[in-house]
């Protein structure tokens, strides 16, 4: 009997999800034994044309990481959707836009204006050049993808069957999902989150929590924190209360606050708004001026609360005139 076909693809990605897959160590040999890997740009030499030549829906499982921020990302997202029975948004970028999603705080023109012209280390000639999608050269024409103004998650472009959160998804969770798929047991309903828990990161954190009455916030460099006590109780903004469990609270165990990379908890659509709501519940002040003074101590709410999820938030991007 033919082995099920597996594909992995990286769109607007850092490569961390690919490394996380390899971090299952020798179990990668079990994956190779169980699946026929038909497309994996980072590890194998198949080209786009090999995928285009396949019959639709012949790839059994496609793990798609990276967000959609240019025309090539979108084209391959549509291609993998057509050729795959099961398309999984793998990792934070595919699930919710991830770190590239922070580009939605600005515009492509502002980014290019800085990167290609305005940055202190850029020296321009003839006023500077922006990337051109089509360039005519003596040897022939060169085409590069069009970069978009707004970063999108995978499910904002194609239908997605399952989601595996994390930046990256933790290797033990990746293996547990692969193992489950290979077991042949029925999969949960389409749209489910796999490889993660159904509580918040706080549930896995080993620090001691007390009833919260917060009156002061600190930047992480401003104080020495007690490794046994909840970081939020000590005034460090930690995204644990608004982040899905599944990673084992690795960051708080390493004495840094949770950044929110496993995405919103169950039944939460907007991770940033939920964190804002959670902090508002536990800030201990009633006087408007006192409240404003405490809120002033939270630097960069947009970047902190929406660090991974901006592209998938309700408003998706900053309004720019």
């Amino acid at each position, binding site marked *: 009997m033919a082995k099920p076909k597996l594909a992995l693809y990286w769109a607007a990605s850092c490569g961390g999800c690919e490394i996380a897959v390899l971090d299952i160590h020798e179990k990668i040999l079990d994956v190779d034994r169980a699946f026929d890997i038909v497309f994996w740009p980072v590890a194998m030499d198949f080209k786009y044309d090999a995928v285009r030549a396949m019959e639709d829906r012949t790839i059994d499982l496609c793990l798609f990481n990276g967000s959609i921020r240019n*025309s090539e990302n979108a084209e391959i997202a549509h291609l993998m959707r057509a050729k795959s029975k099961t398309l999984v948004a793998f990792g934070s970028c595919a699930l919710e836009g991830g770190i590239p999603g922070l580009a939605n705080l600005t515009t492509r023109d502002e980014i290019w204006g800085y990167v290609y012209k305005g940055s202190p280390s850029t020296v321009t000639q003839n006023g500077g050049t*922006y990337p051109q999608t089509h360039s005519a050269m003596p040897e022939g024409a060169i085409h590069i993808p069009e970069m978009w*103004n707004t970063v999108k998650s995978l499910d904002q472009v194609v239908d997605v069957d399952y989601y595996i959160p994390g930046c990256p998804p933790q290797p033990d969770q990746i293996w547990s999902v692969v193992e489950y798929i290979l077991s042949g047991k029925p999969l949960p309903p389409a749209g489910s989150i796999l490889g993660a828990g159904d509580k918040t990161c706080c549930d896995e954190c080993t620090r001691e929590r007390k009833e919260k009455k917060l009156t002061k916030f600190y930047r992480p460099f401003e104080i020495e924190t007690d490794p046994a006590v909840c970081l939020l109780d000590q005034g460090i903004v930690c995204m644990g209360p608004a982040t899905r469990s599944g990673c084992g609270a690795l960051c708080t165990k390493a004495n840094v606050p949770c950044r929110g990379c496993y995405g919103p908890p169950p039944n939460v659509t907007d991770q940033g708004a939920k964190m804002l709501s959670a902090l508002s519940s536990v800030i201990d002040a009633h006087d408007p001026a006192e409240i404003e003074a405490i*809120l002033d101590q939270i630097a960069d*709410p947009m970047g902190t609360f929406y660090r991974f999820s901006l592209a998938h938030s309700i*408003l998706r991007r900053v309004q720019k005139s």
Partner: protein
Amino acid sequence: MAFEPKIIGFLCNWCSYTGADLAGVSRIKSAPNVRVIRTMCSGRVDPAFILKAFHLGADGVIVMGCHLGDCHYQEGNYKTIRRIPFLKRLIQGFGIDPRRLRLEWVSASEGDRFAAVVNEMTEEIRHLGPLELQVQQEEVLQPVEHR
């Protein structure tokens, strides 16, 4: 046709919704632009409701609750008094004028205050103009025009 603001109002059951009812039965005239959604407490109003209201086309959102100390559930409006100013900062971060989100305390006996608040906010939003959120759907099919 002149711009008519669409304002969503989240009113708490015990004070502000009752205050709005009082304005009604007292036949106090006020602008019809606020669409009222009743919640049991202003503390129930999740910031996601407000963001969703803007996303779906509201030009303004107002949250009304009991005066501090009078909350039917003791502490609900204390959470609101932190949540709404915090959310104003966040929507400003999103490029939305924070004057489009407002928090007011209106008690059950303040029918005329309800009407005054509604009229005032309607005029402010009329002055600010419609909130036309940029929709980025077109990029799925065509690239952004190259410059």
